[in-house]
């Protein structure tokens, strides 16, 4: 009795009934090769509905089994009431055979119906392991590169195909791309259904809105009960210069003759990479054709950041406790990582679209007994489970999403671990700079400190931004005062301004730089009163942090059109001598800065210190200098960063008072000192 099967692969056999045995079992091995796996059919004539378990034996050792769960149209035409008689061993079984072939090349493969003793006939199919896998087994670690290289090669082959492509009617019903995704390395991944006999890899042409695009593809096939018998499900990747969108309507033409066609579900369902990986995890063991293992390895490659996509998630654990980010520099990171099976070779961190590498020279380790409950009995691993390191890279403050830590293993593989976004802290914004000292107590002595310091200065300068003008009135000679955030101090400032305003003649103006803190409304009201009480041009500007009024001084001077100015920074009030000195400065502005020495009013016997918190200059002189000057951070405790001329008229003694003594932390002082010395 012959049961015809559809034409297709050369290895498909016509089933034959054995006439040598008295048995009601019937079946055959139809496909047996490294690429397409092992498949066939089996049924019991006395119980057509019975589902059988087919065992795969190598020299009498059962290595795998599967059930007869595939509907066969050809058999159903004859026996419509039967249960599915087809079977297909999953790709994992082929993987097992491949590994054994290297050691047991002469071993024979047999398929047996469990519980019956019935051996399925194999016809001419190679059933000796060495013949099934004639080439030497490929090293596992080389697989990702091989598949990528193959995809690249097939993509290159497709270039000519795409140029010369002309549509022809397909030989058979087309398939359908149902979902698509893009991984972080740029590969397009697709899944859907296709004609079973279509090639599972090779060159292809993707036609999208009359554009012909060269592609290389690699698919793995699995069974689907919702498509006809000539079709099956597929999942795989395309190496193509194209990105799927919801309204994409591509058609994929497979193979060197571009005859096999796969259309696209409309609208196309574009899913996240994580969702696609989860889908693949479900389907990979069902794949019977194609290179599922190679696809899996491609997913695990190091430029793939899908969490749990690489490595065995049960064998490695990691979490980050603190990620101190500094835009332009990178991150200072502390956490813990344990890998049961593979030594950890390094770390990478992805924040948003930025990938950071851990600087090995900054890595140090410490015990983490607190994670012992995860891995009892692994004291050696726990002894160095905690790590701290600097991850360098161009982090930006607005691209910190989906943080992911990658453990890089010595064998080239990696595993990805989601990082709790709550571990992220932006230095200087969310936490003070001194938080960095918790991770690196000797921060100022570390080799990366100059870059860190530069990053801090740049970031603070960026964070300060520019000021926002509330009221602007032109004044060629300008006294710029910084309104303190503290309410009492603000009242005092405006009281002093009103009191002294009457001493000034024409062409003098005041500019107030106030903060956007709780006292903002006081600033607006008191400024209005200042305008009403004086005849002088008055301007008001707002900045987020008035401690950095110095940084926005160029913007203020430009807006007001000042040619000479006196700047009074936060926490400083002009004394009577200072108000007189203002007059002196404007009478004859100097080409160099003049300092208004600021005194601690509780220490009567001091002349005060020359500090950039209170100085006078011409706008041109200041503008020429500020463009090249390093950014200073924190309070001004000395004249830095301004250039100091020790000429006779460069310091007005006891000209101003501190309402609070300037203080800088040692770290800030070191950052500023580093700027001076660089």
């Amino acid at each position: 009795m012959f049961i015809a099967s559809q034409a297709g692969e050369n290895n498909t056999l016509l089933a034959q009934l054995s006439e040598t045995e008295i048995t009601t079992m019937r079946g055959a091995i139809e496909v047996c090769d490294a690429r397409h796996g092992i498949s066939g059919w089996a049924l019991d004539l006395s119980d057509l509905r019975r589902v059988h378990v087919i065992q795969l034996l190598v020299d009498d050792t059962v290595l795998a089994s599967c059930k007869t769960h595939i509907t066969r149209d050809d058999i159903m035409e004859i026996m419509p009431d039967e249960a599915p008689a087809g079977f297909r061993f999953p790709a994992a079984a082929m993987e097992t055979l491949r590994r054994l072939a290297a050691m047991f090349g002469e071993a024979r493969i047999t398929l047996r119906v469990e519980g019956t003793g019935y051996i399925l006939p194999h016809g001419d199919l190679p059933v000796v392991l060495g013949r099934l896998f004639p080439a030497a087994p490929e090293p596992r670690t080389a697989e990702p590169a091989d598949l990528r290289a193959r995809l690249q090669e097939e993509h290159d082959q497709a270039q000519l195909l795409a140029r010369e492509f002309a549509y022809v009617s397909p030989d058979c019903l087309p398939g359908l791309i149902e979902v698509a995704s893009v991984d972080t390395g740029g590969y397009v991944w697709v899944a859907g259904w296709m004609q079973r006999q279509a090639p599972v890899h090779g060159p292809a042409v993707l036609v999208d809105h009359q554009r012909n695009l060269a592609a290389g593809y690699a698919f793995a096939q699995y069974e689907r009960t919702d498509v006809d018998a000539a079709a099956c499900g597929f999942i795989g990747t395309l190496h193509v210069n194209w990105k799927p969108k919801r309204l994409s309507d591509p058609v994929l033409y497979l193979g060197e003759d571009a005859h096999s066609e796969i259309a696209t579900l409309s609208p196309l369902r574009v899913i996240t990479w994580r969702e696609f990986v989860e889908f693949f995890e479900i389907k990979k063991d069902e794949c019977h054709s194609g290179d599922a293992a190679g696809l899996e390895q491609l997913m695990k490659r190091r430029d793939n950041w899908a969490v749990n996509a690489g490595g065995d998630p049960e064998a490695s654990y990691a979490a980050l406790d603190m990620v101190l980010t500094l835009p332009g520099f990178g991150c200072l990171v502390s956490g813990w990582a344990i890998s049961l099976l593979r030594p950890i070779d390094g770390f990478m961190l992805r924040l948003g679209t930025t990938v950071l590498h851990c600087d090995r020279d900054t890595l140090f380790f410490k015990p983490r007994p607190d994670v012992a409950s995860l891995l009892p009995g692994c004291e050696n691993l726990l002894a160095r489970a905690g790590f701290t390191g600097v991850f360098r890279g161009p982090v930006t403050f607005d691209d910190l999403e989906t943080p992911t830590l990658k453990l890089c293993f010595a064998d080239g593989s990696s595993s990805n671990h989601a990082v709790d976004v709550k571990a992220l802290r932006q230095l200087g914004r969310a936490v003070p700079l001194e938080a960095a000292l918790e991770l690196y107590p000797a921060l100022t002595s570390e080799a990366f400190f100059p870059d860190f310091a530069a990053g801090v200065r740049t970031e603070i300068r960026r964070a300060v931004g520019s000021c926002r003008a509330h009221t602007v009135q032109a004044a060629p000679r300008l006294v710029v005062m910084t309104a303190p955030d503290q309410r009492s101090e603000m009242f005092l400032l405006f009281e002093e301004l009103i009191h002294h305003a009457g001493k000034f003649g024409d062409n003098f103006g005041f500019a107030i730089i106030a903060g956007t803190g709780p006292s903002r409304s006081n600033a607006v009201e008191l400024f209005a009163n200042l305008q009403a009480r004086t005849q002088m041009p008055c301007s008001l500007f707002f900045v987020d942090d008035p401690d950095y009024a110095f940084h926005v001084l160029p913007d203020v001077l430009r807006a007001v059109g000042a040619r000479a100015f006196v700047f009074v920074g936060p926490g400083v009030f002009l004394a009577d001598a200072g108000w007189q000195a203002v007059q002196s400065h404007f009478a004859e502005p100097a080409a160099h800065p003049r300092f208004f020495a600021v005194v601690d009013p509780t220490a009567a016997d001091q002349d005060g210190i020359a500090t950039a918190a209170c100085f006078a200059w011409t706008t041109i002189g200041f503008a020429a200098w500020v463009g090249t000057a390093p950014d200073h951070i924190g309070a001004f405790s000395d004249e830095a960063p301004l250039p100091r001329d020790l000429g006779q008229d460069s310091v007005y003694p006891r000209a101003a008072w501190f309402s609070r003594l300037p203080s800088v932390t040692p770290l800030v002082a070191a950052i500023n000192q580093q700027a001076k010395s660089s």
Partner: protein
Amino acid sequence: MDYAADPFPAGAPDGPIAVVCHAHPSVSKGGAEIAAYTLYEGLNKLGYEALFIASVPESDRAKLALGSARERAVFFDPISYDHFYHLSTPAPLRDLRAIIAAERPAFVNFHHFMNFGIGAIRAIASDPNLTAVVTLHEFLAICHHHGQMITRPAKLLCDRSSPSACGTCFPEQTRQQFALRKNLFMDAFGSVAGFVSPSRFLAKRFTDWGLQDEAIAVIENGLAHPAVRTPPRPRHDNTPWIFGFFGQINPFKGVDTLLRAVEMIGRSKSLSRRIQIRIHGNFVGQGEAFTTRFKTMVDDYDCLSYAGPYDNASVGRLMSECDYVLMPSTWWENSPVVIQEAYAAGRPVICTGIGGMAEKIKDGVSGLHFRVGDIADLVHVLDKAAHPAMLAELTAGIPAVTDAEDMARAYLAAFSRFRAARAQPAPEVIGLPVEDDDYNSAKPQARLEA
């Protein structure tokens, strides 16, 4: 001070006299506003054109009752006032300026800088067309702790301010801020022609602080309506001696001291039969623990009673129902009106022997002193006072009280002296070398002292 002499030897003032106060007595009953209003009434009685200008919170508009056509109110928002430097937002000064521009007073007597702000005094006092005088009612310019010169949080008596000492009491402020605060006050007071203090004690504190001694006149606060002096209460052998406390029931006024004294008295049957402490006043801003303890003790001790709140009109009668008036304050006090009221009623005063109290009440003459916080000494003094001979001796030593007209005469004399003595301020010289100290020395009252 010879109150009978012509207060203005040179003739009547060339304009009204504006009495400016931080509150109106119809809204609040503090000593400063009562004294200020008494002065205003005294000036009116003497026939001088006077003006009473008070700042009133917007929320108290409904309470305000102006007593005459020459009273003005400047409304303000208490939220818009800085209580450290004592500076206000523009509105109160703007309105005050408007009134002064309209009325053109010859003298402006500030009875406080609160609510208008010290900047208002500096601005008004700089007007060359008027003479500004400031009456000091407590130490607020010196001490940020409610102007009482009591340390915080220990509530110990403080003798002298300094930036470091004040910074210790208020660690939330810097020492430098206290120095700037003093400088601001000194600069504002430098524009003022003179000062009035109701007590020598307070005047001395301000001269120690930096004001010139000759710029301060000591003038007692008068009573607007002095009570009729009554003879001592009739007594029998077993009539208990009644010691009356009058005032706000708060720890600064020493009520806690009295309660502890009551506990000690209660342990002695003989004392508790002879001595009765009667408390008059209201609980303002007191915690629940204090109030509960007070009420419990009133219930538990026969020698303690609570007579409830009182108003100024009945204080004379209430005091006449006592043998002595108690003033156990734990802070310096300046010139408490209670002392004048007690004298007016003919009652000697037993007080803590410190500050303005000790000045106004002569120990063994018009009253008795006890050591501050010393309960045993207080009880001993009460025991000593509870004898007819002592009462008679002390009653005989009670001085005459000042009334509103006496007060006004004294003020007018001071105004006249201050105006005559006021040196014109040196004109602002532009372009002086900054090393020249002559500029700073031209205004000695405004020199910053550490």
